[in-house]
């Protein structure tokens, strides 16, 4: 697979490390509350495991060490969109 890095252009997926769904950006912020255990359980262990268009986190370990959000079809491996994860996280209202 070739990942079209927004800053560096097309790069081989071999240069990247895969983490998982972009849902992992949304770590619960209510860790001080008793009820957060369930939220952290859902965050840490439960996955949508989508068959189709999937937004996922790739880390450019052997490159500029940026985190990317890659939109990729899990049935065909076709990549339709690549963004910097920090931009995506900001639109989700996260700090960085």
């Amino acid at each position: 697979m070739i990942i079209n890095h927004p800053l560096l252009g097309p790069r081989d997926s071999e240069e990247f490390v895969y983490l998982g769904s972009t849902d992992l950006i949304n770590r619960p912020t209510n860790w001080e509350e008793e009820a957060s255990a369930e939220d952290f359980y859902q965050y840490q262990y439960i996955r949508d495991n989508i068959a189709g268009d999937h937004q996922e986190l790739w880390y450019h370990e052997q490159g500029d060490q940026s985190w990317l959000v890659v939109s990729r079809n899990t049935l065909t491996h076709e990549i339709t969109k690549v963004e910097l994860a920090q931009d995506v996280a900001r639109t989700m209202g996260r700090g960085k």
Partner: protein
Amino acid sequence: MSKTRYSAFKVLKEALTGHKGWEPTWRDAEPKADGYDVIIVGGGGHGLATAYYLAKNHGITNVAVLEKGWIGGGNVGRNTTIIRSNYLLPGNEPFYELSMQLWENLEQDLNYNAMVSQRGIMNLIHSDAQRDAFIRRGNAMLFADAGCEFIEAKEVKERYPFLDMDNPRFPIKAALAQPRGGTVRHDAVAWGYARGASDLGVDIIQNCEVTGFNIENGKCLGVQTSKGEIKAGRVGVCVAGSSGRVMAKAGIKLPIESHVLQAFVTEGLKPVMDNVITFGAGHFYCSQSDKGGLVFGGDIDGYNTYAQRGNLPVVEDVCSGGMAIMPSIGRARLLRMWGGIMDMSMDGSPFIDSTEVDELYFNGGWCYGGFKATPASGFCYAHLLATNNSHEVASAYKLDRFRRGAIIDEKGVGAQPNLH
């Protein structure tokens, strides 16, 4: 329906009478209008084994196995055929040892030649720390009566002269072997269980895709399929690889990601490897088929996918693992390579459990170790479906174990499915 008993005498008799007496191995059925006591979703090794043990051990014969494609067309036909029970943790080792014992009696039980070959499996050791870890694992195996053998480097070299003992980066220091491990003809496992189940009255229904579950007031009453609605007293899903897609139809999310594992076979070679050998520093495992091909595999590709094909970086990684322990493999040409979809769970261990929906049960999350578990998985899933209680050796395989902190993490890498 086939009630033919296979034997050398039968083969001889058929040979002398023009092979006119052979019958289909199992009966291809259509759904019954009034439904079933139990429906198994998924006609792979685990599903067929479940149906067989439901009928044989529990006398429940009004059972249907629904298969989207053809039986044995999924992961039971895509694995590297290795069987072993060399696990460390108490939640796992007794289960896999039960599986090994069932393998040992499988052919007599089913009256079917599955080519169970206890040729032994040998895990290579490359460092002092690994030696300690493997001795600990060996002790766990001895506790479970799985048996093991510690082999010093000198003997490894004598037995397998083609191994690169003095590789500068990954020298071979010793090995831990399980002589009872080995290989099995994987397709024959599906066919043998199908024949056994069919003979006991189970309906095997192919080209029958489950498209939805009929759930009312939190209770599963049956399934919708490409061949219409089928009523069921109890539904057992058993579709590892597609668990996410199928369980989503019941509105259930799982602690599972789907990943692709690639496997490889070389052209036929003269006999060189009489057992199964695994590389301890990377991930590479290899055996030689009866046709002479070296069958090998390594790590999963590492990204979510439902496509039954992988990418080239992992091909290179697997092959370099092979080159590190047996450089002669570099002269062999690849005949075929393929991919299968794995249910990668959050701790690397499987699930055999009830779900939040009454009368709907789940078996999956086998990561890339499902084939060796086939008999015990069917045995324990049948026990659960018949009695609504977990079998003793599968009692740790609960879906809520992450919520309780009772994970079974053999590799110790945490909730990172692509590293298990």
